[in-house]
């Protein structure tokens, strides 16, 4: 049951994490609008999200209970690296010059999309509780 819940909300989890990381980068861009030689950063959202979702497919769909040390698990668990490390390695876009208007619009846009995802999560919870109540 908990495994299913986890799978159900995996997509929303990824989106929220990515959005909040992007929000951080955009806030840093706005804060440094006056700093000489500052290079504004952004993330390649769709590619980063695709990568995260692919990682989910590789994870084992079900697990066997191991009662002895000699039992062999189905697949070896690999520890997922943190989002920020993964994204920082591949999906950071560097821009040459800062444009305050673009940054502000992106910031507001990103915050609305974040709140939209939260509403989706709440709706999913409502659906689940409705089903449980019958």
């Amino acid at each position, binding site marked *: 049951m908990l495994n299913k819940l986890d799978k159900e909300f995996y997509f929303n989890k990824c989106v929220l994490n990515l959005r909040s990381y992007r929000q951080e980068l955009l806030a840093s861009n706005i*804060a440094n609008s006056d700093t000489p030689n500052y290079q504004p950063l952004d993330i390649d959202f769709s590619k980063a999200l695709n990568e995260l979702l692919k990682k989910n497919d590789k994870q084992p769909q079900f697990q066997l209970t191991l009662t002895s040390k000699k039992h062999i698990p189905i697949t070896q668990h690999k520890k997922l690296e943190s989002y920020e490390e993964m994204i920082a390695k591949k999906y950071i876009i560097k821009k040459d010059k800062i444009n305050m208007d673009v940054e502000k619009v992106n910031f507001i846009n990103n915050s609305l999309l974040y709140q939209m995802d939260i509403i989706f999560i709440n709706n999913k919870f409502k659906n689940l509780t409705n089903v449980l109540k019958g």
Partner: protein
Amino acid sequence: MSLLKIFDIANSAMIAQSQKMQMHASNLANIDSLVNTNGKLHPYIAKKIILKFDNSNDVRSGGVKVEKIIDDTTPLKVIYDPNNPIANSKGFSEISNVNVVTETINAISASRNYQANLEVLNTIKSMIMKTLTIGQ
């Protein structure tokens, strides 16, 4: 949680920008001042603030900090003013290199940046409040 980090980023930017506004106000206020250095009177030299990107422990995002305060290198103007205490034997005296137009515009720009960061704070606050409603 990275949303809470944004509070620090916006906070540092607001501190830096308000310090900048303070500097411009001080430049404008002291446009006619004389400064006493080593027993000699000099006209007031305009000051400038250099901002720096502040990313401690090697993360991508970061706030702002004031790196240093430097003297404006614009040359001093010389006017004919024999009554001025620092006038030379021919009656010419140097006056401060504060440029009123530049200072005013830079002060307005700093105040706009301050407002932008305040808005960032408000947006983040509403995002965090929304996050706390998950599952209610």
